[in-house]
């Protein structure tokens, strides 16, 4: 399938997951991720896979735990309030060192919030998606093609580092249609999982998938080991796109749908003769702090563009150790900013630079 096809973001991710070897999808209806589940329900029975509509998000994530424990590639998708419910299971998965792919097609919050696009689960995704010391691999693609590419990468890295991967999307990316290409390189990499339970994997002794360690020293040891892995990930897996950053005095930092809007504003600023660039994080954890820190050597100000009250902005400030002014252009609750609003924010920051 080398030609380009027009697909909705949610459906493209679902197809990519299947191509990446996922045969186990457990879902629960919630807007605006519904197309993922609907696509899986249509495709899985045709290819001998499982689509199962769980009784709750709690059950769905625990079904993912069961499937992933047997070494299978598994997936669930939800939107913000549903991810809160899944957070218990996600914490267990981190403790169990279980790989799987979780989609959060974000909507406005807190609480039931709304059903329009949002990026207000950034803190939840990168800081505290459940109790305990842990991180997830967090990906934030900004085009349907990148959603497809990232799905393969997410599964591979989740398996490699034995940890859950979260794709942080929003209602815009999930619902929009774009041409996508499924490439030759899009392959399922199914490595042996000697730690898995059941009969599907080659193993030599009894395996236990567990997150309980009653001896404090043992639990500490487990967490130390996990964080050693995290350090490797921080060194090797930071991903971002740098756009017109070489000579930029002002750097816009934006991800996902916001980055699409911000890119237009950056172009408009350039047309007006302003030296403006953009860093677009593709991984939110690990956060691309190296690129942003490097940019701070020459850039004089940063502008964060977010569909939240300002969450990623904290990571930008941390990355540059507050050495430059960082301002925020934002909307929240499902309201989306215009390129003109971002341009105004850029111009303000630029004014401060002079």
């Amino acid at each position, binding site marked *: 399938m080398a030609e380009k096809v027009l697909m909705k973001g949610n459906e493209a991710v679902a197809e990519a997951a299947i191509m990446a070897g996922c*045969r*186990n999808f*457990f879902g629960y209806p919630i807007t605006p991720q519904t197309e993922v589940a609907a696509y899986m329900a249509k495709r899985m029975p045709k290819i001998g896979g*499982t689509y*199962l509509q*769980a*009784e*709750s998000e*709690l*059950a*769905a994530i*625990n*079904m*993912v*735990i*069961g*499937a*992933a*424990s*047997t070494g*299978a590639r*598994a997936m669930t998708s939800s939107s913000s309030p549903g991810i809160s419910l899944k957070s*218990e*299971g996600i914490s*267990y998965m981190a403790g*169990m060192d279980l790989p799987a792919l979780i989609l959060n097609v974000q909507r406005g919050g807190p609480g039931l919030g709304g059903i329009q696009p949002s990026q207000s689960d950034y803190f939840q995704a990168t800081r505290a998606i459940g109790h305990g010391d842990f991180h997830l691999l967090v990906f934030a693609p900004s085009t349907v093609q990148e959603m497809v590419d990232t799905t393969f990468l997410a599964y591979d890295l989740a398996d490699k580092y034995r940890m859950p991967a979260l794709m942080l999307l929003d209602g815009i990316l999930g619902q929009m249609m774009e041409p996508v290409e499924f490439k030759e390189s899009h392959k399922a990499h199914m490595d042996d999982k000697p730690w898995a*339970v*059941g*009969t*599907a994997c080659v193993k030599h002794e*009894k*395996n*236990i*998938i*567990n*997150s*309980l360690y009653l001896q404090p020293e043992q639990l500490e040891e487990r967490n130390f080991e996990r964080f050693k892995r995290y350090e490797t990930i921080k060194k090797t897996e930071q991903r971002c796109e740098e756009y017109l950053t070489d000579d930029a005095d002002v750097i816009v930092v934006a991800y996902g749908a916001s980055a699409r809007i911000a890119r237009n504003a950056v172009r408009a600023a350039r047309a007006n003769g302003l030296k403006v660039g953009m860093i677009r994080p593709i991984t939110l954890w690990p956060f691309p702090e190296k690129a942003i820190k490097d940019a701070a050597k020459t850039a004089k100000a940063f502008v964060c563009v977010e569909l939240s009250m300002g969450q990623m902005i904290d990571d930008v400030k941390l990355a540059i150790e507050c050495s430059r002014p960082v301002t925020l252009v934002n909307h929240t609750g499902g309201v989306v900013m215009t390129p003109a609003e971002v341009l105004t924010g850029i111009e303000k920051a630029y004014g401060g630079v002079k």
Partner: protein
Amino acid sequence: MQTVFQKPKALTDVTMHYCPGCTHGIIHRLVAEVLDELNITEKTIGIAPVGCSVLAYNYFNCDFIQAAHGRAPAVATGAKRANPDSVIFTYQGDGDLAAIGTAETVHAATRGENITVIFVNNGIYGMTGGQMAPTSIPGMVTQTTPYGRDVKTAGYPVRICEMLATLTGTTYAERVSVDCVKNVLAAKKAIKKAFQNQLDGKGFSIVEVMSTCPTNWGLDPVKALDWARENMLTYYPLGVYKDNE
């Protein structure tokens, strides 16, 4: 020297943490004997609950997944769907299965998941020190019902087998007891059937095993068995509630 009695092969050779007189040991043994007799230990995945039997993964020689509180039937569902050749059983207490995990229990049953559920009911949260369980009987004194379970404020106990028997998806539901030799033998028969059903692809089987908690009931092991016979078994009658034979 001739060996006349030994541990089932499906049990590991470690000392269990259970309190003196607790019947988890008997129930573990029955499950292990069944795994031996059906020769399925190698392909079995047990799902441990949260509660007294949380460490079950240390006691059985099969693979294990330790689930979050109440979620064992959902974990079992995922494991069975992804790996249908494996034999999957959950081992859950009353707080785990009948309170926090009620939804997972009911829906695994109504979907007719081809799994085996061993449900240990002693009417109390043992691990946390003896609080009221969904199955504590009316008037039962626990840490959180110090004046006895008052049904006006704490409601009535849940009868799981009776409830699940109403579901089309449930294949087999039987309540057994391990208070005496005769009942222990009957319990083993039921457990074996619940595993055999899975091997035959028949669907959701649950065996509710009436148990005791001498420590938190405040009784010695023998008196606890007497109390169970007089109070628990009258509220929770033994028998087959559903059998799609």
